[in-house]
């Protein structure tokens, strides 16, 4: 007993007091900033392994980006990744960062479904389905609930049964073999049935999304309530995204 108390004492306080303002250590490839400098655009576009970069104006689609940072390495004056981990939006086009624009990525309050804020403001239960995810986003979703990030302090929990859930969190590009189980799980969830896509693989299919073993037709059928980019998404990106979606007080207009 005494030894247990000693261990607890030695561990000290591990939780991050404020997850909305915490700083991430060292280098982190978060929200990119694109300058107006002129570069060889054809070369830049060709470089990106996921075709996330488009021209006129030069922009990066964070829903497609693998955050490998190769563009920033080769074109350091054009593209730079900041440590801003707030990358989630309910607007797919909101994930596109254009050159010369430096503004935060936000949840658009006008377009959030009414039910979500009225009903889920202080309690959100989610069912997670990995549909071809490589276990990186899954590990970060688990990490979001460890003693440091402690997402459950906000009333956000992952539950075992879809019957107990308010929505579904999908990771992975959605494989053919998971298409039916995913649909069954979604059908079992009661309203408001929110859908959250976590990670580049889920949002755009990622590097494997164009393959024939992937079936993304599920996503064409329903509106998506939140996109959380990353490869994998950082726990702070996940927590801030979910808080911005559901909390009135956490969002600054």
């Amino acid at each position: 007993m005494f030894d247990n108390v000693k261990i607890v004492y030695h561990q000290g306080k591990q939780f991050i007091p404020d997850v909305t303002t915490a700083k991430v250590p060292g280098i982190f490839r978060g929200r990119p900033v694109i300058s107006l400098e002129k570069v060889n655009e054809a070369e830049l576009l060709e470089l990106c392994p996921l075709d996330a970069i488009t021209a006129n104006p030069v922009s990066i689609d964070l829903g497609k980006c693998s955050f490998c940072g190769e563009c920033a390495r080769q074109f350091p004056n054009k593209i730079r990744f900041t440590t801003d981990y707030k990358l989630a939006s309910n607007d797919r086009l909101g994930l596109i960062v254009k050159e010369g624009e430096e503004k935060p990525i936000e949840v658009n309050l006008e377009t959030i479904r009414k039910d979500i804020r009225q009903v889920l403001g202080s309690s959100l239960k989610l069912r997670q389905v990995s549909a071809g995810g490589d276990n990186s986003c899954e590990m970060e979703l688990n990490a979001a609930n460890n003693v440091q990030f402690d997402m459950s302090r906000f009333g956000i929990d992952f539950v075992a049964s879809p019957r107990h859930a308010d929505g579904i969190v999908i990771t992975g590009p959605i494989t053919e073999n998971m298409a039916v189980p995913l649909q069954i799980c979604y059908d079992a969830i009661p309203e408001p049935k929110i859908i959250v896509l976590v990670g580049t693989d889920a949002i755009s299919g990622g590097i494997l999304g164009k393959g024939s073993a992937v079936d993304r037709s599920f996503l064409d059928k329903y509106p998506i309530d939140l996109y959380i980019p990353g490869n994998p998404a950082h726990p702070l990106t996940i927590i801030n995204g979910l808080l911005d979606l559901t909390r009135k007080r956490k969002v600054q207009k």
Partner: protein
Amino acid sequence: MNYTTIVNKQTISVAEIPEVGYYEFFGLNTGFLTGAPERHCVNYFGYPVDSHIKLICCIADDQTHQIYLSSCLVKASDTLDSFTAKNFNFEKFEREICENFGINYTDHPWLKPVRYAHNRADQSKTIANYPFFSIESDELHEVGVGPIHAGIIEPGHFRFICNGEQILHLEIQLGYQHRGIEQQFLEKKKLLQRSTIAESIAGDTVVGHTTAFSQVWESICGIQVSHDIEFSRTLALELERMAVHTGDLSAVCTDIAYQLGSSVFGRLRTPIINFMQEWCGNRLSKGLIRPGRNPFPFSPELANRLTGVLDIYEPHFLEMNVQLFQLPSALSRFERTGVVSYDDVLSVGTVGMAARMSGLNRDIRSSHPFGLYPEIAHEPIIKHHGDVYSRVQIRKAEVKQSMQYIRNLIQNVPEVSENEASFESPKPNSFTLSLVEGWRGEICHCTITDSQGELILYKVKDPSFHNWLALALAVRNNEISDFPICNKSFNLSYSGHDL
């Protein structure tokens, strides 16, 4: 000679691999493994050549540090005698060959689909109608779990046949994660795209799989990498091992409802993966390892920082371990739970921790060394009971060992060589095999090029491919309530298996 010999990371011409008749091929490869625990099958696969299927079998010998290659040409319509009837090492490999090409085996004991790959020969077989083993009895019942599990983990289906609370049989059906990785390696032509695919094979083994891919690519393009690149890879592999093992100790504590251990080990994983982010910008090391170059050279400042991280980590890790391993309620759940005997692991040919837990010495770091491991002179950690306790002890000991290796490595941070290797196109008509010991065990990547130097085959084998069967054997005669702790103590990959 009816076979040829290579070493890890060696490229040879496909024509140098002797092609023999099927019965000679059969006798040769099953003969290699008879009475030789130091040998096992690291890869056995087929690929289409004109209207035939060429089978290539790769047997690793841990004593001579060599790999024996042989090949055979068969037709998809053939019905063959199975290697598996002689030796279970080949069980999954032959099932995969049957699934991909339709080759039939007369005497394979368990010829079921492996992963319902998109390009499988028989499209009428679908994942929804998998032929589960069943027993007719009024006394027994079946429990089906998955594909979607209770927690945040990857999908797979487990079908238990139980007598009351006791498991008689477990069948593990995978394939839900199949994304066509091997096909995508051929379709995506840019090197950066292929590196990104290698990162996506299994997100918990990013360093292991990207190192295996990089070694393949460097070997088949005929370039040597500098010392600092090997240094970064070796260091990253050991850090990945530390991080995942620590997380696994947390998961095992969770499954025996030991909250303190779960929280403390869980939080101790964070400083290690946060250090990876300080080093390369990604907590799971995505972007760190690239063929022929070192995008994030390790600096003396990072070495100081890492020493600081380890100095705080070490006493906390040791203190928690002392407490865990003297807790009777924890030990009673670990000991004699989920036992796999030496004979069984040898028979099914497990690798990595799933072999070392039962006294079978399989560790690529010492048997087919790569990176800086020849200098480290790694001594594998071997346990003998094959139970959850052995698997937990291996993790504890390997974390300590890795920590020592890391401390030694960062004493001498190498100078960074500025010139990046420029890649010629891969050598034509060549075969390359690369072995890496990831934290889970042996990773094997193979590739074959055509006369233009284009890839015509990219073959990935995650250690889980061997080890899932060991989990099924481990839970036999155990209480079904002990399944979670058995499963966590193996911590096998779904995505690495399904590809």
